[in-house]
């Protein structure tokens, strides 16, 4: 039962193995393992996300006996530290030094740009398991670039739409002033508009400051019925707590993109109770695939699965679809891309397909924070596709 996946070796050990093997040897010969490069954060702010994405990819490979499309797969891992200043160098390492033939990565939207660039220049297939910047499947789209997560626009659009459907007429937006926050803000506004509601004002804070007071003090004067927001991680923890402490939670309900309460509910405590968010995944999603996935992930890692694990798992599933079609030949670009484009991924989040720009067309669920869980309470926007503005897909 030995397979060629290397599940839990440290990067040092992997690199040692890579150094022993002749790098330049053509790896296409039948039986030679496909080198799948994982460039993810294993240290830094997003390390936990990188670990869960990786664990889910390894889990899928293990389920398949370490082979995709009949070809053994060897993982080559590189820690990108979520540091955009090292991103280009790190991609060079992954492709030039470690000889990766396909890439999965990453979390940070700045770092992923370097991977997108490399994929465009060198034609190496790339699957993005988290970063949600619009341009990766927008103006920078390419046949070799796929995404199994979301665009920042998608959950925020769903949230805006759900608010309008609940009868909210006037809402405001608060976020960090950076690309992700701007893209989400745009989605929120368009979602509100689709239901006849109005975005009264957007308030921005320089990234990554956590002094929210100057913005919160303006909320009572705006005369809005809800505030939408895009924050993640520690910023989200602090924002939700400060919002409640400012006495606004009951008078002007807070909502937002799902990352506002994703993996942060324990830290946010009572301040998050009842906060509604929209995302392509949530707790208590009742489908067979999800139950099986969560049980297997728990058994394998001892941790609860989360949206990041789902995205990683689906990245491996998508790659498998391509490799099945080419019998494991990663270089058969036309067949690979055609199959991946047409894929219907049986995901724990519910099945999804891909848009013409290679981004998931997926349900955005409405969730409510209840007793430490983001309980799914409905569908905010069914089978929602990102507009993919600016994409001119090259032909293959």
């Amino acid at each position, binding site marked *: 039962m030995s397979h060629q996946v290397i599940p839990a070796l*440290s*990067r*040092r050990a992997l*690199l040692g193995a890579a150094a022993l093997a002749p790098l330049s040897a053509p790896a296409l010969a039948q039986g030679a393992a496909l080198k799948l490069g994982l460039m993810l954060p*294993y*240290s830094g702010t997003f390390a936990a996300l990188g670990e869960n994405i990786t664990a889910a990819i390894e889990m899928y490979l293990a389920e398949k006996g370490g082979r995709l499309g009949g070809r053994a797969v060897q993982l080559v891992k590189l*820690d990108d530290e979520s*540091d*955009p*200043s090292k*991103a*280009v*160098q790190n991609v*060079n*390492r992954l492709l*030039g*030094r470690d000889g990766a033939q396909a890439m999965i990565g990453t979390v940070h*939207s*700045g770092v992923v*740009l*370097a991977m997108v*660039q490399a994929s465009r*220049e060198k034609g190496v297939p790339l699957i993005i398991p988290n970063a949600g*910047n619009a341009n990766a499947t927008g*103006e*920078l789209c390419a046949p070799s670039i796929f995404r199994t997560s979301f665009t920042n626009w998608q959950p925020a659009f769903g949230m805006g739409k759900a608010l309008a459907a609940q009868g909210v007429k006037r809402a405001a937006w608060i976020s960090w*002033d*950076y*690309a992700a926050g701007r893209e989400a803000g745009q989605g929120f506004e368009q979602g509100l508009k689709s239901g006849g509601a109005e975005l009264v004002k957007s308030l921005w804070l*320089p*990234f990554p400051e956590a002094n929210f007071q100057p913005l919160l003090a303006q909320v009572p004067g705006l005369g809005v019925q809800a505030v939408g927001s895009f924050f993640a991680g520690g910023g989200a923890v602090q924002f939700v707590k400060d919002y409640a402490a400012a006495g606004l939670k009951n008078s002007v309900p807070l909502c937002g993109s799902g990352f506002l309460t994703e993996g942060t509910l324990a830290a946010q405590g009572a301040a998050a109770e009842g906060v509604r968010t929209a995302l392509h995944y949530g707790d208590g999603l009742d489908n067979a695939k999800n139950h099986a996935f969560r049980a297997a992930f728990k058994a394998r890692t001892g941790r609860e699965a989360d949206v990041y694990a789902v995205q990683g798992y689906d990245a491996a599933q998508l790659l498998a679809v391509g490799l099945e079609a080419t019998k494991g030949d990663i270089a058969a670009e036309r067949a690979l891309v055609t199959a991946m484009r047409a894929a219907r991924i049986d995901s724990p989040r519910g099945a999804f397909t891909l848009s013409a720009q290679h981004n998931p067309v997926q349900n955005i669920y409405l969730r409510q924070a209840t007793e430490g869980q983001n309980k799914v309470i409905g569908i905010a926007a069914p089978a929602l596709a990102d507009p993919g503005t600016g994409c001119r897909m090259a032909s293959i």
Partner: protein
Amino acid sequence: MVIASRRGHLLLGGAALVVALLPLVAGAYVLQLVSTALVMALFALSLQLLVGGTGLVSLGQAGFFGLGAYAVYFVQGKGAAASLLLTLPVAALLAGLAALAVGALALRTRGFFFLMTTLAFGQMLYFLIHDAPWAGGADGIFVQRPNFGLFGLDYVPARRDRPAVLLWTNLALLCAAYAGLVVVMRSLFGRMLQGIKENDHRMQALGHNTYAVKLVAFVLAGALAGVAGHQWAMTEAFVNPELLGWHRSAEALLMVLLGGLGALHGPLLGAFAFIGLNELAQLVTERQRLVEGLVILAAVLLLRDGLAGLRWRSRA
């Protein structure tokens, strides 16, 4: 500040020749790495004019480096590649102008105040690029590599040749900058800088306008950092706000210190040592910060004259 002897320059020339011949034997990855080291050497060299040459310790130099890199984006936008003959002067000019504005204010202070002021203004440039809607966003942005266009005759190297061509370009610019600084430091202006480094007040008492002299040096160093930044953008084809962050300024200071404050060519050795150590540390450990921190501690505590000083000391 010592300028290498004739023999030292022969050695440096030999090293440059070895680097120039690397494309014959090395693969793309090594060429890319050496290219980066050459760019960082150019960047550290610009700082050496201030630190070793004038006695001004600036913590904002990365601001000018990053502006030079962003100049490529400002000229080209998301459009087609422009000629190096356009983007390179624009990079130097933009960085030089920013250095003029920052220097004019910061040089009103001395010592640690100067250090804190340059740090703060460097961060201001960082936030400016980070937050401005016209700068391509906080995540950074791709740029086309400037080409070698001359009067409508564009030379665009084939993808296979590109690492070598970039390496030679960076090497040529580094050699030119070094030679230029040798001339500058040997000139009357260079001797005035040395005088200021040794005793600013005495130079003032002798009737020199040291503020103006220091400002010229600051602008020159800023423009040179801009050229280095431009080469970064050309080598990596990607710019992001982190290029302007103060950690990069501190790393440039480290390269200067590693190489040695006492010698003009110190930063060249320092940059290669730094890039080499970094690459090595990345291979053997996940705790790169620990390695970098310990290397700095060791350098500060033990290596008073830097790598350039080692050779001389062993001979003395």
